[in-house]
């Protein structure tokens, strides 16, 4: 590993540049990194407390308050109606399942592909998955006409000898989402154990008690590390098919139905690509918030990470566009009456503003902005891009769910869906719930996996090639 002492003096400038740029070249002692992460975690400043109180209050009112009102009065408070029987709740449901793919993509797929740049933010992304899934999991309850009977969808032995209907995609949803939630929570927890042990060793008071319980007696012996790395490897590989199956199954809620605009074989890969798109965009936004609101994060999360996220966002946006083209434009070419009306409705009808918002936010803006390396490296640009792309993805789900339902094979029964205040309140409340849970978690668990960053430090080195210094990485496993 070259350092200033082993390289000729004229290359020191290059080394400094590279150190500033790349986290995994910029080595600091483990103790110092741990201290930085703990300092960020224990920073429960007044601003943070006010922010949490505010978010918590807003969530209680807009989500739980509105939901209680809905449950006690009736689903009629929502804007759904005949023939658009699913509305903003299902749109939000699919949206949050999409966001949940953020974590698994970053921590599992990038790990499997040995993309080293993922190291500092795997946990930040995995937290997004867990909280997004929790938010998403509320909607299959919220949208029920008789929410208090939700447990009939759960297979349990009962006196009536009734099982749920395993042919129904909604029951598949139940199993898929629960599997994913349990799997990704475990996958969040495993790499967290060494950091929890570190926090246990360095904290006092109630935190020490908490981390002692959560770190399960981790001592950091070689055997424990071997087992942990093996378990993480297995999980990383195993959670990828779960991630693919979850959103495929959610997309089948629509694809197996007889509704035109839904009944398409491309929905599986289309939705997965859309989910990864909204997930990566959300990671960009959340990392910006983490970097600007938490201490010491500018060391761990650097412009290079935003740069790479931006490149990924551009590529996935192109992938999404490919599937979108296959979905919509080719349907139009087929010429079936109702489908032509659906596409007219989307592009020139009453829902056109939403459809065009989707196209502009998912295609035009990313393709215009993300080519530029300088722009990609600016964290605030990626923050904005993340918001823009997610607005576009929300619009996409809105168009697919409510737009296709508005136009069916019997023109007399076409309709217009107008979301009601109660629906908007609940949908908004899940956003504040997500921010609240994330904000709380950021001060309860260490957000950066220091041991993974250290692993990356060990693997990276600087090599002198002619007159330049080049970062290189050794293969770890």
């Amino acid at each position, binding site marked *: 590993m070259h350092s200033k002492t082993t390289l000729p003096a004229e290359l020191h400038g290059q080394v400094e540049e590279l150190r500033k740029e790349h986290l995994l070249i910029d080595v600091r002692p483990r103790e110092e990194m741990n201290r930085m992460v703990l300092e960020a975690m224990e920073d429960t400043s007044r601003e943070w407390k006010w922010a949490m109180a505010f978010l918590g209050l807003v969530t209680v009112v807009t989500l739980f308050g509105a939901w209680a009102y809905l449950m006690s009065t009736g689903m009629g408070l929502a804007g759904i109606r005949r*023939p658009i029987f699913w509305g903003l709740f299902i749109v939000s449901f699919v949206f949050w399942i999409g966001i949940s793919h953020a974590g698994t993509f970053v921590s599992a797929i990038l790990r499997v592909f040995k993309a080293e740049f993922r190291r500092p933010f795997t946990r930040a992304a995995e937290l997004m998955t867990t909280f997004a899934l929790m938010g998403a999991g509320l909607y299959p309850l919220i949208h*029920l006409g*008789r929410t208090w009977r939700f447990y009939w*969808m759960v297979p349990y032995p009962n006196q009536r000898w009734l099982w749920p209907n395993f042919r129904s995609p909604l029951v598949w949803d139940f199993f898929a989402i629960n599997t994913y939630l349990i799997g990704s929570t475990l996958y969040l927890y495993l790499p967290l154990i060494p950091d929890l042990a570190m926090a246990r060793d360095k904290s006092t008071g109630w935190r020490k008690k908490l981390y002692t319980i959560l770190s399960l007696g981790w001592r950091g012996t070689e055997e424990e590390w071997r087992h942990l790395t093996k378990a993480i490897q297995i999980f990383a590989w195993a959670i990828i098919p779960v991630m693919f199956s979850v959103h495929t199954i959610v997309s089948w809620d629509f694809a197996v139905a007889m509704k035109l605009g839904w009944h398409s074989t491309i929905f599986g890969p289309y939705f997965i690509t859309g989910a990864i798109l909204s997930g990566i965009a959300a990671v960009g936004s959340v990392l910006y918030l983490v970097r600007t609101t938490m201490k010491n994060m500018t060391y761990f999360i650097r412009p290079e990470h935003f740069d790479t996220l931006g490149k990924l966002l551009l590529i996935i946006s192109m992938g999404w566009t490919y599937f979108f083209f296959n979905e919509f434009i080719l349907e139009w070419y087929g010429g079936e009456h109702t489908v032509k009306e659906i596409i007219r409705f989307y592009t020139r009808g009453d829902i056109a503003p939403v459809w065009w918002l989707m196209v502009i936010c998912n295609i035009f803006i990313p393709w215009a902005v993300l080519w530029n390396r300088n722009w990609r490296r600016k964290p605030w640009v990626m923050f904005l891009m993340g918001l823009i792309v997610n607005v576009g993805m929300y619009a996409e789900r809105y168009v697919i769910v409510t737009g296709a339902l508005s136009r069916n094979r019997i023109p007399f029964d076409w309709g217009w869906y107008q979301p009601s205040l109660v629906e908007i309140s609940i949908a908004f409340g899940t956003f504040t719930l997500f921010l609240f849970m994330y904000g709380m978690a950021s001060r309860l668990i260490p957000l950066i996996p220091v041991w993974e960053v250290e692993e990356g430090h060990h693997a990276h080195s600087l090599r002198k090639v002619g007159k330049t210094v080049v970062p290189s990485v050794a293969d770890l496993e």
Partner: protein
Amino acid sequence: MAGGNGQHEHTKWVMVIDLDRCTGCNACVTACAMENNVAFTGEKENAYGRGMHWIRLVRYWEGEYPEVQMRAMPMMCQQCSNAPCEPVCPVFATLHSEAEELNIQVYNRCIGTRYCANNCPYIARTFNWFDYEWPEPMHYYLNPDVTVRRRGIMEKCTFCIQRIRRAQEEARLEGRPVRDGEVQPACAQACPTDAIVFGNWQDPESEVRKLAQSQRGFKVLEELGTEPKVIYLSSPRGEF
């Protein structure tokens, strides 16, 4: 599932609607609402598509002004033999009855996911958005033979299964099969032009069997493979 206290013979209830005779008077809609305790939701809710009617007149306009013609097509649950609403219910609240080949909605099992409504190509299903009330003296017309549904539950045309059961009970008590024309759903009973005819397809002498032979006969959205039980007779007056 056989009804009542004993076994009934296998029946296949079919409806024939003669569109040439239909005047669009809405008597069928009113009669169905009276018979089946269909809630009325008020003008504002109805305008927003929250009407609860189990049968509706699908109205089309034909021709250019001033030679415009209104055409009405009574549309209700088609009791499909291959119903798309059945496989998607997560709790088995909508089932197929093998004995009389009807699509059954089980009110007390429904948890209101509304997937069945989305999957019905005929948009035949309605949902109880609120706990509707029958202000006095409207509550006097509630039919004791039919459940009053609470909020959160799907409902749809049942081919007046309560009338089918009653006829079957009476026939069984008298030791004879159900006669053709003995079972009349409310819509068929109310129709002033006898445009709606109901009967048992298994009975070779039934009126519906005879009417269905007509060259004017067609089924709505038959190409979807739902195998509906309602046969429409098109009118030479217009497009259908």
